[in-house]
């Protein structure tokens, strides 16, 4: 089975801190994604990566950046955390063949105070 591991389940940070959310997948998937989940808004795509060092903006990239130095690892970076970035963050991966589903991690609930 595909395993997508997010390094933290819960995280509390202060406003202005630089925050790193880490995600690792073990199935050699080419594509990796970061979503943000908020009640009543569903899942919104922040960034995705289709290869090492390659990235593309999603629907809500403002205030975030990403890093993919190795195929199995995809990091989401909050350069200067703000309270409106308090949310659930979900990492996912998939292969780019046309019918392949997303495989998700367990999520990181981030609170910015």
């Amino acid at each position, binding site marked *: 089975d595909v395993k997508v591991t997010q390094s933290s389940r819960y995280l509390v940070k202060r406003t202005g801190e630089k925050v790193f959310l880490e995600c690792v997948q073990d199935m050699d998937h080419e*594509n990796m994604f970061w*979503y943000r989940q908020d009640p*009543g*808004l*569903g*899942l*919104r*795509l922040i960034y*995705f990566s*289709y290869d090492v060092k390659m990235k593309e903006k*999603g629907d809500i990239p403002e205030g975030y950046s990403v890093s993919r130095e190795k195929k199995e690892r995809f990091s989401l970076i909050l350069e200067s955390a703000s309270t409106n970035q308090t949310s*659930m963050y*979900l990492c*996912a991966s*998939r292969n*780019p063949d*046309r*019918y392949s*589903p*997303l495989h*998700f991690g*367990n*999520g990181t609930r981030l609170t910015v105070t």
Partner: protein
Amino acid sequence: AQTVTQSQPEMSVQEAETVTLSCTYDTSENNYYLFWYKQPPSRQMILVIRQEAYKQQNATENRFSVNFQKAAKSFSLKISDSQLGDTAMYFCAFMKLGSEKLVFGKGTKLTVNP
């Protein structure tokens, strides 16, 4: 841009009964894929079922089946013989052919009551 609408924020059903979750989408594409994902309280998002738009036959996975109406742009999920473990958030998602982006609906919270 594609949009996915789940018109039922919350639903409940008695154990062993059948429930249908609705999903509509808006697209000008002809080739695409549709998915239903389940997110139980443990937060792990799990694929429930998927459908290719060019296939007429509705997908089925054990107690889960879909009613795919391409002309109406509707993709509802039917859960038969509901079980307590079906309690979860359910998300409908759309992906056009050649894209890597899934567009999700806002979700339906389903509670199965004993």
